[in-house]
């Protein structure tokens, strides 16, 4: 029992402290692989020792000291790393000289290293998939196997992706530092994009049996919280955290008991997470205050309007359209046009929405996007154009990824086909 508790607390500390531990070790050692190895060793030692010796008062500092000792051991053994040992000593001395209470430094004093790690993992010279994988693995602390599962690729593929990314960081000398104030506006969006990508993958898995991947959503929100603590003044960080909380609040209501998709209109709003909504709304205000709003703040404001409404009908659709109009100027994208078209349909009727959807489709980028076809199908149905609606649902089915979405589209297709033939039958005698 005692050992069970200790192992649990090892895992809790592991999840919470892994990013900090690794970030500091990378700075000291200048080597991801070595940092990873000694961090894992320190964790293994903790799992062995804590059940016997008890959990130390400052678990993070204990882990850091253990990892550092292990690094020194390894460096002494590997002759080729002699130069790095010198670097390690210099860094340790410098940390001490900077006023930390001698090594190991206080965990609070080392928090900033995670920000370096964010900017290295999300460096534009790395491919998008690599950025996401590195961030989830090294800041989130998911194991390679967990990251692979989360993104539905074989573990060997994910391991290779991480190895290649680390090799590029090392060989191309991607720096390990926080961009200065001048660079920050150019570099922060990439970090936010990676965190949001993790969340969007969770929101509607691109493949697989599940609609919502709760583990990934939690992870993205946790990463955004870390960023928000590290960069409290950056309004878009607040905006992104708000956006994810306000969408995640609906998680429990988005699927029925058998895992099927439930549309916003049909969701049991009593099951929405009020605590997340409250937190998100507070953050939205902060994100929207004091200057031109960013894209995440605007999207969060839209999500907040949905969350505040008692029903789809009483939702403030005109305000949502207005926010989409601003969003189109701040961050134009075919996806924004698609969502705006749906909102316009709620204000001005399905014909107006459909016209905008056709424009969005004509732009070309969303041709194979199932949500565009699905939205067209819904509006065509409302207009009584069932045969065209069925075609749209068929196109959506050809492109849809996860099983619940496919099941939903199949139902809609069947309904449109039935209505279409019923309409035909009704019309024929009249002709």
């Amino acid at each position, binding site marked *: 029992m005692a050992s069970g508790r200790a192992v649990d607390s090892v895992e809790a500390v592991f999840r919470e402290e892994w990013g900090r531990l690794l970030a500091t070790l990378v700075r000291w050692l200048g080597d991801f692989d070595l940092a990873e190895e000694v961090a894992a060793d320190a964790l293994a030692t903790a799992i062995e020792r804590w059940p016997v010796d008890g959990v130390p008062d400052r678990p993070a500092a204990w882990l850091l000291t253990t990892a550092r000792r292990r690094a020194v051991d390894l460096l002494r053994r590997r002759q080729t790393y002699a130069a790095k040992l010198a670097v390690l000593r210099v860094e340790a001395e410098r940390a001490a000289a900077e006023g930390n209470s001698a090594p190991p430094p206080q965990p609070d004093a080392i928090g900033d290293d995670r920000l370096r790690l964010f900017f290295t993992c999300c460096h534009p010279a790395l491919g998008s998939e690599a950025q996401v994988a590195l961030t989830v693995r090294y800041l989130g602390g998911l194991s390679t196997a967990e990251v692979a599962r989360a993104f539905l690729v074989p573990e060997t593929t994910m391991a290779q992706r991480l190895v290649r990314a680390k090799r590029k960081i090392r060989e191309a000398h991607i*720096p390990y530092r926080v961009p200065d104030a001048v660079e920050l506006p150019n570099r922060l969006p990439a970090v936010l994009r990676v965190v949001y990508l993790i969340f969007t993958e969770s929101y509607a898995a691109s493949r697989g049996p599940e609609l919502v991947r709760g583990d990934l959503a939690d992870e993205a929100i946790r990463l955004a919280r870390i960023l928000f603590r590290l960069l409290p003044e950056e309004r878009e960080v607040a905006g992104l955290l708000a956006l994810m909380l306000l969408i995640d609040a609906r998680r429990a209501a988005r699927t029925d008991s058998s895992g099927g998709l439930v549309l916003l209109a049909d969701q049991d709003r009593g099951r929405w997470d009020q605590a997340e909504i409250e937190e998100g709304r507070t953050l939205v205000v902060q994100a929207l205050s004091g200057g031109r709003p960013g894209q995440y703040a605007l999207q969060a404001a839209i999500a907040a309007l949905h969350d505040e409404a008692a029903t789809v009908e009483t939702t403030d659709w005109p305000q949502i359209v207005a926010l989409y109009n601003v969003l189109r100027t701040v961050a134009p994208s075919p996806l924004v046009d698609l969502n705006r078209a749906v909102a316009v349909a709620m204000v001005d009727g399905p014909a107006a929405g459909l016209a905008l959807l056709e424009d969005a489709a004509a732009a070309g980028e969303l041709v194979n996007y199932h949500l565009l076809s699905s939205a067209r199908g819904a509006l065509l149905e409302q207009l009584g154009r069932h045969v065209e609606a069925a075609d749209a649902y068929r196109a959506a089915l050809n492109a849809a990824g996860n099983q619940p979405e496919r099941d939903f589209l199949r139902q809609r297709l069947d309904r449109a086909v039935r209505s279409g033939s019923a309409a035909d039958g009704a019309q024929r005698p009249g002709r």
Partner: protein
Amino acid sequence: MRYLLLIYSEEPTQTPPQEQIEASMAEWWAYDEAIRKAGARLAGDALQGSPTATTVRVKDDGERVVTDGPFAETREVLGGYYLIDVPDLDGALEWAASCPGAKYGSVEIRPVMELGM
């Protein structure tokens, strides 16, 4: 007259056996010595592999587009080079992005292999 010799080869997917590496290195050293002795060599370096490459383009509106990998368009041909010495990739990205070549096409950044370390 100065000429630039551009060396192309297939990248091995696996590390070749040690004796093969040594035999190949011996060839390169012999060539390097010969070209130095003849007084023909002005400069020469081995580059890190293509997975370490980063490509920079600057759009008409000034936006800098950085991509992972060597992604020259097929109709783009090598037009020139600069060998630079900066602390890290960010330094190289700065010079690449301010190079007129990034506006008219693309600039590929490849780290030079530091031998004998």
